[in-house]
């Protein structure tokens, strides 16, 4: 008896053997998973990590049999508690979904037209024999468990009335409804801000201990892997290229792909010794050999001319509402923001969603008009310029966006798209434009003959290169990069950042780099400005901000970044808090802020007194 129990405990909860999944695409069967095998023990966390298209989500969907049966084929064995899930009748499989195996996705997966209470009650009643009233009571208890404040009163709210972090808590609560043995989490924190992500990960770890669950955690973020998992599988193009203890994989990756992936992961604090930005090392995916080592980028000296000067910039948006549609409040998106950027310098604006960093960029570009303040580009006041001069100035600064899909016209060849600004500004004829496009495509690492293709023929990283080429055709001095690399896969992100650094040293470009990703920011910037609720709370040289953060918010932000080091797993705790909103009453007068100079060029906002 005792022996039998021990036997059961040591046998894995879930054993996946030779999982092979194929999709039918235009009549042909295409293999998307090749013989993936792994096991998850009781109370263990297994991370499945990989870039887009690696098959990590398909693995989870195959285990749960959630792929459309008509166009997909799953082979192999998925043993869960001794039963092969792939052979179960569909009705029994349905009872396992949401019962013994629960799933959470990105927090946007709640049905927008039903209340969260509806979601919870329907899940509870589907699996457990409860009356409507009992299910509601249970739902409140579950919301309490995931620490949602005043749970009972929020049951009849809809998903859009919750913040992202709270929505993810709701999903976790629903997952816990039937005491699952295994929780499959498919990129649950990808769209969340870093402080919120840290809270959610912590909640998951706490609940795992309480509920004695196993977790299959799917992510693309190596930092989250290090933070969460005991074991890790690295996936690449449908193959599990490496499987093992997480610590082992981080310390001594065996597969060449894992090595190239880890090399592309920016790690907070690794730049402490380096004065300027630094290229990512390039590692060949096939062989694992180092093709190009990490190299420092250029550092502008103090005598370089100032390119952009922003002073006391204020941008507010009116909110109308109420019975008569009157002014009910204002979003103080940008509040007295001042900074300058020298030639060849990168200033990063960091902060979480709603902090006003994107609005700052858009206001500088003139896409949003400021309420007050001044923006001087190469000494000329942008706001006071006439139409023609404004166009001239616009040529000197260009913007690239997060989503290269929607910022490139799908019906225009990329050659035409790149040449368009050149022709609009009448900088030369068509032949000249063609030559310049060819030259730029080469510069951003593409081939000149690609000019005749359409955007959909390119990958996300390539499209971002095209956006860069289009920005560069006007020979700008300043590029405003608004979350330009945020949506890219790790290795592609590293390549685009390397390209941006190369262009900077070749062309003496200045960057205003807007990002929420602290690790990337550390990698690329000379100076950093931390924004919080529309204001800059701390600004200074990169080494000063990362090495000697003074403002409490900067510290909180830094401590929330997942550390790609499994030995530091779960060491930090972060208090549960929500992002504050910059919406203020109509008569709100922003307080006068004072700044203290910590060291040369490192300023920090003094706390409210």
């Amino acid at each position: 008896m005792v022996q039998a129990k021990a036997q059961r405990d040591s046998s894995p909860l879930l054993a996946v053997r030779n999982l092979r999944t194929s999709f039918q695409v235009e009549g042909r069967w295409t293999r998307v998973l090749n013989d993936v095998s792994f096991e998850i023990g009781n109370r263990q966390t297994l991370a499945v990590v990989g870039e887009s298209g690696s098959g990590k989500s398909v693995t989870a969907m195959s285990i749960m049999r959630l792929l459309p049966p008509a166009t997909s084929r799953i082979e192999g064995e998925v043993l869960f508690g001794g039963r092969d899930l792939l052979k179960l009748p569909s009705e029994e499989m349905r009872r396992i979904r949401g019962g013994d195996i629960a799933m959470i996705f990105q927090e946007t997966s709640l049905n927008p037209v039903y209340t969260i209470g509806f979601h919870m009650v329907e899940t509870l009643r589907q699996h457990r024999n409860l009356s409507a009233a009992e299910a509601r009571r249970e739902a409140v208890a579950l919301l309490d468990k995931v620490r949602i404040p005043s749970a009972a009163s929020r049951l009849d709210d809809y998903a859009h009335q919750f913040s992202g972090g709270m929505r993810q808590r709701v999903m976790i609560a629903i997952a816990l409804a039937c005491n699952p043995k295994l929780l499959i989490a498919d990129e649950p924190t990808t769209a969340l801000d870093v402080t919120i992500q840290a809270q959610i990960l912590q909640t998951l770890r706490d609940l795992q201990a309480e509920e004695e669950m196993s977790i299959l955690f799917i992510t693309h973020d190596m930092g989250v892997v290090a933070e969460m998992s005991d074991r890790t599988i690295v996936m690449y193009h449908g193959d599990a290229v490496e499987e093992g203890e997480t610590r082992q994989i981080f310390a001594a990756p065996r597969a060449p792909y894992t090595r190239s992936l880890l090399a592309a992961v920016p790690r907070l604090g690794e730049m402490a010794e380096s004065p300027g930005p630094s290229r990512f090392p390039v590692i060949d995916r096939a062989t694992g050999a180092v093709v190009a080592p990490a190299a420092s980028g250029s550092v502008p000296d103090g005598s370089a001319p100032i390119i952009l000067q922003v002073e006391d910039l204020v941008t507010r948006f009116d909110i109308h509402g109420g019975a008569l549609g009157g002014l009910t409040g204002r979003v103080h998106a940008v509040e007295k923001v001042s900074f300058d950027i020298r030639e060849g310098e990168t200033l990063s604006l960091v902060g979480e969603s709603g902090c006003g960093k994107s609005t700052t960029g858009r206001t500088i570009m003139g896409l949003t008009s400021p309420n007050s303040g001044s923006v001087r580009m190469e000494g000329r006041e942008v706001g006071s310029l006439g139409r023609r001069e404004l166009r001239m100035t616009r040529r000197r600064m260009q913007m690239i966006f997060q989503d290269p899909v929607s910022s490139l016209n799908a019906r225009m060849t990329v050659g035409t798209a790149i040449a368009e600004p050149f022709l609009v500004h009448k900088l030369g004829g068509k032949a000249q434009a063609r030559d310049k496009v060819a030259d730029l495509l080469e510069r951003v690492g593409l081939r000149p003959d690609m000019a005749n293709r359409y955007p959909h023929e390119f990958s996300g990283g390539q499209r971002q290169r095209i956006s860069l080429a289009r920005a560069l055709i006007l020979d700008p001095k300043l590029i405003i990069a608004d979350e330009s690399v945020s949506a890219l896969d790790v290795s592609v992100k590293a390549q685009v950042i390397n390209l941006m650094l190369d262009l900077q040293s070749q062309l003496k470009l200045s960057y205003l780099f807007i990002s929420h990703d602290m690790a990337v920011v550390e990698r690329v910037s000379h100076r950093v400005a931390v924004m919080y609720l529309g204001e800059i709370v701390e600004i200074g040289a990169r080494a000063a901000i990362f090495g000697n953060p003074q403002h409490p918010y900067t510290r909180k932000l830094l401590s929330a970044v997942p550390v790609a080091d499994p030995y530091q797993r779960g060491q930090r705790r972060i208090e549960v808090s929500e992002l504050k909103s910059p919406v203020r009453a109509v008569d709100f007068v922003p307080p006068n802020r004072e700044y203290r100079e910590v060291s040369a060029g490192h300023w920090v906002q003094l706390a409210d007194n």
Partner: protein
Amino acid sequence: MILWLLKRLLQAVLVMVAMSIIVFVGLNVIGNPVDILISPDADQAERLRVIAELGLDQPLVWQYVEFLKAALQGDLGNSYVFNQPALQVILQRMPATLELAVIAVGFATLVGLPLGLYAGLRSQSWLAKFLMAGSILGFSLPTFWIGLMLIMVFAVQLGWLPSGGRGETASLFGLQWSFLTADGWRHLLLPALNLSLFKMALIMRLTRAGVREVLPQDYIRYARARGLTEQRVISLHVLKNIMIPIVTVIGIEFGSVIAFSVVTETIFAWPGMGKLIIDSINVLDRPIIVAYLLLIVVVFVWINFAVDVVYTLLDPRVRLGQKGSAR
């Protein structure tokens, strides 16, 4: 919400005023009702007498003001032809059109929605493809032709159903209704079917498109991952999300059936408002035309209002009368 309601009401009144002006001016341009109403051999004195009696000797502006004054007291003038209050004439015909419209739209929804659901869920099956191809016919075949064919087949050849008229009626709320008697139903069936075919095809295609759009959404995958039965996923999570465009179309189509079911009513000799308005236009019976158009505006305003209210019930993110701050 209250503000929104007031705005809506104001809009409706403005539309009605604009409509009445357009109609008044427009009608004044085309022809003289006196020419049609009086026999050609009537003498000049007789003509003048009739013109004065109908108020047609006054300036147009004055006629309009007189009309407005009377309209505010619920009097839209007397029909030249029937010599009865215009509103009363129209309201007598209204039940016929109303029941035809309700049954036609109801039929289109009850058949179109399930077929569209099926076509969306099993888009690869031959039946779905057949339905989709069939719906093209529903769009493209002219109503009058289908009506004639229906009469040919079911009334003339098979002799199952009558070819026209309302049949036996029964009284409810003081009005005469066909749907209360079996014979009335027999008369209703063909015209209702004829009217509903186009709408059925429309609703079916819309439903299918909605289902195809909603199925790949995360919340559907999530609903399945929670172990909900397929039936529940479809009937609750899919259906509610695709209803907004469908409700819009049902509303618009309902309005247009009430207003413009002329062709069908003519073919099936259905004594509804559509037939009345055509007859009135032929004899330039101005009070009837004006009253009819105003009534139709009211009907459309009410349908749109109902549709908007249904939106908020379907999707909590829709808030009436509240404008979000535009970024």
